[in-house]
């Protein structure tokens, strides 16, 4: 195994700045108590992480993150928020020294574990040398579709994708059951807002 | 023929630098300006001047017509939607009772109606 070194190329600086912004947004989300602001910041978070995926050349993941993370989940979270309160219940900033210690210990362990990880983009890393390489080598012979991700998603791992579609379908059915399309009301408009106006606003 | 490429590169450079300046200036204005309604204008600089200049700069570097077509779509799309989004923000703020500062001494007094 020959060694592989990462140089501080401009793209690394780009990645670093994107990751820094991601951390900043995440902290801001944690600290905000205004739920609309949190949803908006999570939209920004999705946009940023998708930009990061683009810089890692994971085009399909970035596409999904942009469409689902920034688009649909923002809209659905806002829609869901209409059904509940707009502000998180203010909690006193508690001090939990034990929890803090546990978090720091776990974080330190994780950081320690990264020292053994293969370098970013190392061709000898296990992820790049076994399954991934096999897909890249065999897709032109087996499937002949230019986009390898699609080949993996729909053909090599067709069963997985069927399961994923099933999960989405189940989510839809669950929402329908919980919120009333299949209820005795027969999916008619539900207007229980006036009653709990004070509680919701 | 080579001259044409050099000219294209120079124009691209100029557009990118101008666009970059506009984007950064808009962002600085977004942070510096005193009230919500004046920040809208700073955001507008980024959305129009900055974005379109950079997109035109990229357009000149497009390797083939399909990339050029997509860049034009992005440009037109931003051109159509960014004023709508800006107007929607301003309108929503206005409807919920935000009053802008007015006059050179920046006071909240006039109702503007």
């Amino acid at each position: 195994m020959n060694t592989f070194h990462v140089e501080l190329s401009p793209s690394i600086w780009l990645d670093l700045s994107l990751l820094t912004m991601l951390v900043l947004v995440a902290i801001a989300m944690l600290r905000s108590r205004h739920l609309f602001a949190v949803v908006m910041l999570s939209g920004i978070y999705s946009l940023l992480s998708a930009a990061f995926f683009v810089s890692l050349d994971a085009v399909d993941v970035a596409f999904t993150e942009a469409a689902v993370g920034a688009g649909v989940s923002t809209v659905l979270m806002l829609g869901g928020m209409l059904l509940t309160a707009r502000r998180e219940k203010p909690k006193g900033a508690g001090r939990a020294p034990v929890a803090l210690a546990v978090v720091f210990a776990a974080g330190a362990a994780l950081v320690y574990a990264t020292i053994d990880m293969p370098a970013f983009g190392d061709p000898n890393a296990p992820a790049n040398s076994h399954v991934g390489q096999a897909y890249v080598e065999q897709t032109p012979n087996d499937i002949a579709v230019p986009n390898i991700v699609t080949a993996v998603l729909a053909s090599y791992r067709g069963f997985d994708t069927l399961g994923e579609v099933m999960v989405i379908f189940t989510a839809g059915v669950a929402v329908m059951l919980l919120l009333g399309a299949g209820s005795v009301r027969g999916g008619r408009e539900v207007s229980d807002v006036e009653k709990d106006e004070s509680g919701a606003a | 023929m080579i001259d044409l490429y050099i000219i294209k590169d120079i124009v691209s450079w100029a557009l990118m630098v101008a666009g970059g300046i506009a984007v950064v200036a808009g962002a600085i204005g977004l942070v510096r300006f005193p009230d919500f309604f004046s920040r809208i204008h700073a955001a507008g600089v980024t959305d129009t001047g900055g974005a379109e200049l950079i997109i035109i700069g990229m357009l000149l570097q497009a390797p083939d017509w399909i990339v050029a077509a997509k860049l034009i779509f992005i440009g037109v799309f931003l051109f159509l939607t960014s004023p709508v989004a800006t107007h929607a923000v301003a309108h929503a703020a206005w409807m919920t009772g935000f009053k802008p500062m007015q006059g050179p001494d920046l006071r909240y007094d006039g109702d503007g109606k």
Partner: protein
Amino acid sequence: MDHLILKVTTKLLFAPIILFALYVQFHGDYGPGGGFQAGVIFAVAFFLHAFCFGLAETKKVLPQKALTIAMVAGLMFYAGTGVATQLLGGNFLAYTEIDPESTHHAGQHYGILLVEWGVGVTVASTMLTIFYHFTGREPDIDQEDW
């Protein structure tokens, strides 16, 4: 003058967004994208419609009943492709059976297209269903209020 600008823009963009969704759907083999993303973009076109014209109007264009059918149909389309390959003599979801004589794996290509279509239909209808149910519980927001 209830949001004239938004209405005009949405009318202008509605059909192109749907076309973009279908473009993403059918070009999944050549570039980024596929059924999941296409379904979501398709749903976004209707979200925009609902924001500008109200949910009641959107429900007239794409009623919940049709969405419920589409949800099931999409999933069945995916699974049905697998069953079809079984009936043709192969394993479940072994697309090569669709066109076994082809020298350039046309069967795999068709299979992927069929399966992606099922994914797209399911995702689009499920997203819209969830959206309808989340926002449909509130009385519609007055156009003058935002």
